[in-house]
């Protein structure tokens, strides 16, 4: 280990925050290097001085009472008194009634169809997976890791194919929720574009052809095959995404 590296690890070593292997490496270096061993001793001395110098400021005695009083006051004001609850209902009830009428009548005046609603949910699911730092539950490019991960989490087993040779490496899998049920989400990648595939069982046994739509700049493809619904969404170009779907439906036979 070089001094520069050791210097950056000395405090982690001192605070017992390194993993055992690293810890041993630092220890070996300190035994051999006078310079680093001196800074270790210095930092140890400083840490112990700070710890023992009684520089911990305890709360002044009346602060607890003051804080408690303030919190209790807020707590008292929190549950809305009855008359206020009623006045709130008086204002919102007509609004709620109007909303109910609109919701009931909407389908007759060109409301959203089941398919459009689902498309919207799929796109939302895709965007959410990119935003929330929760793209994958199981991160692996190996289909033999991703597929079994769903065991015991879903009542079906989503097909996972290896398309890395075609330029679509697998990134991982995730549990998601769509169409009022838990679904499997598989994530593939093409260069910097991420592709989410949502899979769940269909009520129909047969298959349907691929339907392509675009929403908010995302391409959405969906079809049914062997009793499973597939929804693919990505910001990838349409023809590339269509090619990906072709590969997905008929994966090239794998060499043994």
């Amino acid at each position, binding site marked *: 280990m070089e001094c*520069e590296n050791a*210097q*950056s*690890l*000395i*405090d*982690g070593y001192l*605070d017992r*925050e390194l993993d055992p292997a690293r810890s041993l490496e630092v220890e070996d270096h300190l035994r051999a290097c006078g*310079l*680093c061993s*001196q*800074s270790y*001793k*210095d*930092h140890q*001395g*400083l*840490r112990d*001085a*700070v*710890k023992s*110098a*009684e*520089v*911990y*400021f*305890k*709360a*002044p005695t009346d*602060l*607890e009472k*003051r*804080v*408690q009083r*303030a*919190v*209790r006051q*807020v*707590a008292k004001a*929190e*549950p809305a008194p009855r008359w206020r609850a009623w006045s709130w209902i008086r204002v919102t009830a007509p609004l709620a009634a109007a909303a109910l009428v609109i919701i009931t009548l909407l389908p007759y005046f060109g409301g959203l169809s089941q398919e459009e609603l689902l498309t919207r949910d799929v796109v939302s699911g895709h965007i959410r997976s990119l935003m929330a730092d929760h793209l994958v539950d199981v991160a692996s490019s190996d289909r033999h890791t991703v597929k079994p991960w769903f065991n015991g989490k879903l009542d079906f087993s989503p097909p996972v194919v290896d398309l890395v040779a075609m330029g679509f490496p697998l990134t991982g899998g995730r549990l998601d929720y769509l169409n009022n049920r838990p679904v499997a989400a598989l994530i593939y990648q093409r260069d910097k574009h991420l592709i989410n595939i949502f899979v769940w069982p269909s009520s129909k046994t047969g298959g349907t052809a691929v339907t392509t739509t675009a929403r908010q700049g995302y391409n959405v493809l969906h079809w049914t095959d062997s009793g499973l619904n597939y929804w693919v969404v990505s910001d990838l170009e349409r023809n590339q995404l269509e090619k990906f779907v072709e590969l997905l439906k008929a994966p090239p036979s794998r060499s043994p």
Partner: protein
Amino acid sequence: MEGKDKLARFEQTVLPHLDAAYNLARWLTRNQHDAEDMVQEAYLRAFRFFNSFRGVDARSWLLSIVRNCCYSWLQQNRSHELSTMFDEEKHSVNADASNPADLALQSADHEMLVKALDLLPLEFREAVVLRDLEGLSYKQIAEIANIPTGTVMSRLARARERLKRILCDR
């Protein structure tokens, strides 16, 4: 959680960490009066958001709220302190081993240490306070300060190196 139940649970799990809250606030604001105000504000905020508290580590949760309150306050009242933070990556540790700290430490008393700590840049001071005074792990500090654990380690290294310089130079 409703009314009385929430208050009782809050007082049981969060109120006992008053000293930790005050100590952090005192070191971040560097004076008693403002620290007390920060603690009260943090507790009110914590109570408002208590329904969203899911963890078991009430102290870390409270401390992250105290820290947020203090930082907003510093931004409004002492924004120059927040801008004194220099680029951590560009300034390497540069250990000064030719000048051992033993002697300086032997003669350093309580008051000198408080002064030296007060002189540290905000982010360094907070790392030392959370680690050496509060005894938190790097992981807990990383969550409170919203930084990677590696940064916690490098901040502590630089903080201790600075403390050494301050104490040796006096």
